[in-house]
């Protein structure tokens, strides 16, 4: 399927099914998922990321780990074309979604971002909106019309593990929630547009341990239906939530992928000695 028709598909369907089984019934090949081939990133003349080729298996959690400045957040933002909002940014290589280069000519970036959602470091519900409005804000932004908004709100909030806590105050301001609840609201907001991949940029770094645990549970549940890519500073978190891990490192030059494998192997018996040193906390 051509990526440029993704938005047309959404509009022609006219609605997003609130019943998530619709996603499961999609043909298996549409979950060929996300893959990068020889991706580089620059900010001005600064070469930030070099030659990353990585596949994200469908319905898994992949953790991107590595010390500060290794380019893992840059890499994440390349995956849904958020990289290009930095004025001097440039890139090379290919990012394939279902085999289609998302940087190809004529590809609608907004349609890509609908398929590859993103949750940010700090919880950021839209301040002028209620909880309910926050959840459906993505549909408004993307001009998607749905028949049964109530079901969608309940479904998304349930998947984000927030429904029980807020079902009686959906019209309260999103800002009235606690930090952890706000972040789960942001997850619910991203789920409402039915992404196939969800990118998370250190989603727990601004939260307390209790909230972090709740979010980690949510992430594991999400991975039953969608693909999750999570950047984290916290190696314990990576070992708790991820199925696969990718270790990034910069030796002063551009950040590069050192090693990627199953999480258990990465933490017990990595191929590269630098990975072993990092996961054992010898540096970083």
């Amino acid at each position, binding site marked *: 399927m051509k990526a440029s028709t993704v938005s047309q598909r959404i509009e022609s369907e006219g609605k997003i099914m609130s019943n998530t089984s619709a996603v499961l019934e999609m043909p298996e090949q549409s979950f060929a998922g996300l893959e990068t081939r020889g991706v580089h990133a620059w900010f001005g003349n600064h070469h930030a990321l070099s030659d990353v080729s990585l596949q994200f298996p469908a319905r898994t959690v992949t953790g991107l780990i590595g010390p500060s400045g290794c380019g893992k957040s840059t890499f994440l933002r390349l995956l849904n074309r958020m990289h290009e909002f930095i004025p001097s940014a440039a890139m090379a290589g290919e990012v394939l979604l279902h085999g289609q280069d998302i940087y190809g000519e004529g590809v609608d970036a907004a*349609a890509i971002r609908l398929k590859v959602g993103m949750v940010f470091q700090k919880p950021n519900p839209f*301040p002028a909106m209620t909880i309910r409005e926050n959840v459906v804000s993505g549909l408004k932004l993307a001009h998607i019309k749905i028949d049964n908004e109530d079901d969608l709100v309940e479904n998304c909030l349930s998947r984000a593990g927030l429904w029980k806590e807020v079902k009686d105050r959906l019209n309260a301001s999103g800002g009235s929630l606690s930090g952890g609840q706000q972040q789960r609201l942001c997850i619910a907001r991203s789920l409402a547009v039915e992404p196939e991949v969800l990118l998370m940029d250190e989603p727990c770094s601004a939260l307390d341990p209790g909230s972090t645990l709740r979010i980690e549970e949510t992430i594991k549940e999400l991975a039953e239906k969608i693909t999750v890519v999570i950047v984290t500073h916290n190696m314990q978190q990576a070992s708790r939530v991820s199925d696969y891990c990718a270790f990034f490192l910069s030796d002063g030059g551009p950040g590069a992928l050192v090693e990627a494998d199953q999480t258990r192997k990465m933490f017990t018996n990595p191929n590269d000695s630098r990975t072993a040193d990092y996961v054992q906390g010898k540096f970083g």
Partner: protein
Amino acid sequence: MTIAPPIKREMHVVHSRGDKVFRGIVTAGAMTSLIILGLIGAFLFGRGAQVFSQYGLKFITGTNWSASTEPGIANEFGMGPMLVGTIIVSIIALTFTVPMSIAGALFIEFYAQPRVKKILTALLDLAAAIPSLIFGLWGIQVFTNIGQRWASLLGNRLGFIPIFNTISDNYGRSPFVAGCVLASLIVPITTSVAREVYSRTPRELIDTCYALGGTKWGAIKTVVLPFGKSGVVGGAMLGLGRALGETVAVYLVLNLNFRYTFKILESEGGNVASLIATRFGEASTEELTALIAAGFVLFLMTLGVNMIASAIVTRTTRT
């Protein structure tokens, strides 16, 4: 065994002699400024009170402003038409300024290329430094031709609406044209406040809109405009304060006439600051006091507007 509660020890800052002298000098300087500015306020208030006790509310509502030259005939001072005219011209100015400033600020902040953005920001600063005299000069010599054409267009098409109605076919030097000139004068102020506020929109909120598949306009509507709402209101109020007190730009363009008029396309209007500029030359002591009182009323209006504006602006640009 009980533990005795700790004893609080007072801590004082003791200034040395040098520091005392230094603090004295600085305080004296600040107090002098305070006294000078306070004196102006008190002076205006005193003269204003004098006029109000003499003429009462008629000073505000009265329509006649005549200083008698012959003894036995009482002076009559009523600034009503001028006050109404000032407000009308300012409202016209604001009607144009607000949408243009919002658009200008959004354009600079979100649409312009980095290099264009830099140039426009510098231009904005420069424009705010143009003396109002030059706006007046441009207004009467250059803009009036264009403004007249717009006014006649409005008058011909929408003349059935009372405020667009005209008796004469003379559209130049009308409140409409003066309001347009005033608008171009306050646009730099309101635009730079709006731009400042918009630029403080958290980047992550905008990114979120894009990450949800939104367009640029979607991000602006969802995040930027709600975020900058009160800042824009504050900026507009700052502009309004400037518009109310502006003298030469209006004086040069507007045809001053002592009559209540709401026909904004007609070539006559009122303006308190221009009244002062016109009358002070041949004014008697008594009329001078009345002019000062009129100045005081103007001052109170701009003061009120400015206070509200700066309260809003400081509240929104803090953090």
